[in-house]
């Protein structure tokens, strides 16, 4: 009886485990092994075409930190990240807050603000490059009303990265807006009413009721947009490529070029790990400052 029971129990465990096998195989082949292999490759000099490789230890990492182009890429990436994360979240929150203040056109506005998110970066890229056109673009035309001279948005090294960031904010604000909007609406109305009765103005309400209560949402949006922004490539690629004087050359550009143009697989892998550490550092900082025993949902 007991042995039979035990055997059927084992069989049951095996059947239960078997449900996870398809995923675990994929997980092993395309994630676990590549992560380990990626680290091993980063310790070698491997040009891929020749197929020969030699172990060089941490040399690739040392090289990465001495590579001016890579450092420039990291610097540009951080510049872009700061602009889009701060600018984008402020704008998204502003839109979300505004949505809770209007009634009749609320649904219409919400739809409109979400639309840019659906267009793939291929479409938004060509759209904005035409918009930014120096002589025939709509942006310079409208700015001309304010007496501004034609600006070479994508050709001027000082503003080409902000131009990419502006497109990014336009293209992705709808996502965070929906999350902030839902967060503000979840706040019990009694709280707001109590504050109003106590004579709290709109700003006080915003600062001491809404913002603290949606802190988990703020953390979530900041983390998601930081992770997304540090991996910026496509938007810059569509608008400017590496940009004037490499102004839009991001860290991913560097990895892409090193791996698939110069076939320095080991070096590219090392750069990827450095970038990964940067992402981890940024997100853990955010959690440190904004997260207190929050549950990931």
């Amino acid at each position, binding site marked *: 009886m007991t042995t039979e029971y035990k055997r059927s129990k084992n069989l049951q*465990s095996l059947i*239960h485990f078997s*449900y*996870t096998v*398809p*995923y*675990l195989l*994929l*997980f092993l*082949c*395309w*994630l*676990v092994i*590549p*992560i380990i292999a990626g*680290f091993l*490759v980063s310790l070698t000099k491997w040009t891929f075409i020749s197929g020969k490789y030699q172990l060089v230890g941490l040399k690739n990492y040392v090289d990465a930190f001495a590579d001016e182009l890579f450092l420039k890429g990291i610097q540009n990436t951080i510049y872009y990240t700061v602009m889009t994360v701060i600018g984008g979240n402020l704008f998204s929150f502003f839109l979300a807050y*505004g949505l809770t*203040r*209007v009634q009749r*056109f609320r649904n*219409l*506005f919400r739809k409109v603000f979400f*639309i840019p*998110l*659906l*267009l*793939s970066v*291929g*479409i*938004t*890229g*060509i*759209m904005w490059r*035409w918009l930014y056109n120096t*002589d*025939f673009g*709509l942006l310079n035309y409208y700015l001309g009303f304010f007496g501004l001279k034609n600006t070479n948005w994508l050709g001027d090294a000082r503003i080409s990265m902000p131009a990419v960031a502006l497109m990014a904010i*336009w293209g992705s604000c709808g996502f965070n807006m*929906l*999350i902030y909007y*839902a967060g503000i609406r979840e706040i019990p109305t009694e709280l707001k009413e109590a504050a109003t009765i106590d004579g709290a103005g709109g700003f006080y309400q915003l600062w001491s009721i809404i913002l603290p209560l949606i802190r*988990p*949402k703020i953390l*979530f949006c900041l983390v998601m947009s930081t992770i997304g922004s540090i991996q910026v*490539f*496509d938007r810059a690629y*569509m608008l400017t490529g590496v940009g004037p004087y490499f102004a839009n050359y991001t860290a991913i550009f560097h990895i892409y070029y090193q*791996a*698939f143009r110069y076939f320095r*697989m080991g070096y590219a*892998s090392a750069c990827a790990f450095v*970038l*990964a550490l940067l*992402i*981890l550092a940024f997100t853990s900082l955010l959690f440190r400052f904004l997260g207190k025993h*929050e*549950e*990931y*949902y």
Partner: protein
Amino acid sequence: MTERFVNRWIWNLVLGLFAVVMLLPIFWMLVTSLKPATEVYQDPPQILPSTLRPANYVDLFQQPGVPLVRWFWNSVFLAIFSTFLVVSISSLTAFAFARLEFPFRDQLFFLIVAAMVVPAQVTLVPVYIILQKLRWIDTYKALIIPGLAGPFGVFLLRQFFLNVPSEIEEAARIDGCGNLRIFFQIILPLARPALTTLAIFTALGSWNGFFWPLIVTNSLNMRTLPIGLAILNGQWWSEQHLLMAAGFTCGFPIFILYLIFENQIEKGVTAMSFR
């Protein structure tokens, strides 16, 4: 009361202004796509063109060496297919991790969560080399299969399945339901919101994917829509009207889909943040 009324209309005005500004790039794309080639490059630009030329859209599809329809279908096919696979594989796996028992279950799950922290670029080189060895470069397999390993779906759905009350499951077990019936007839229907969230994110991620398709495809016919448009973006300098027509053609179907599934998409997005 009046103060509140004024307040509301100020916000209406401000948001309305932003709505117009945000739609302007799309409107400008549509207008440019309908202009005759001679009127595209004009200073000052004509917001409302004097002559409309819808034939641009016919011209677009007659351009040699531009398989626009193929690119579009590649992207649609990839989005549908990988969403279907991700949702089915993740849900079955998440079900086992949430509701069934087997040895090392929690340790395995911890490993999966830990892998979620690792950003995608670190696997780039090895995955590319594996695909190269398998001769999968420039195939749909290369575009779909490595992406199925992402742990996010398993994580999201497990969290949701954990919250399904166990009484329902126990009652079903007493009635003689096996694991799979419980999965298909109880857990999955109850988890529809979470499945929708996962589906939307997978589909949007695939539809907007850029870096991966750029690397693993190289023939013109295997390119996805974003990459195809990037190619045109580099080639067409004086055919701005055609470029805009291409962009509008590809954006329009998605817009219609959005209008149809708007509610589910919004619920899906908002369900995904920290609680």
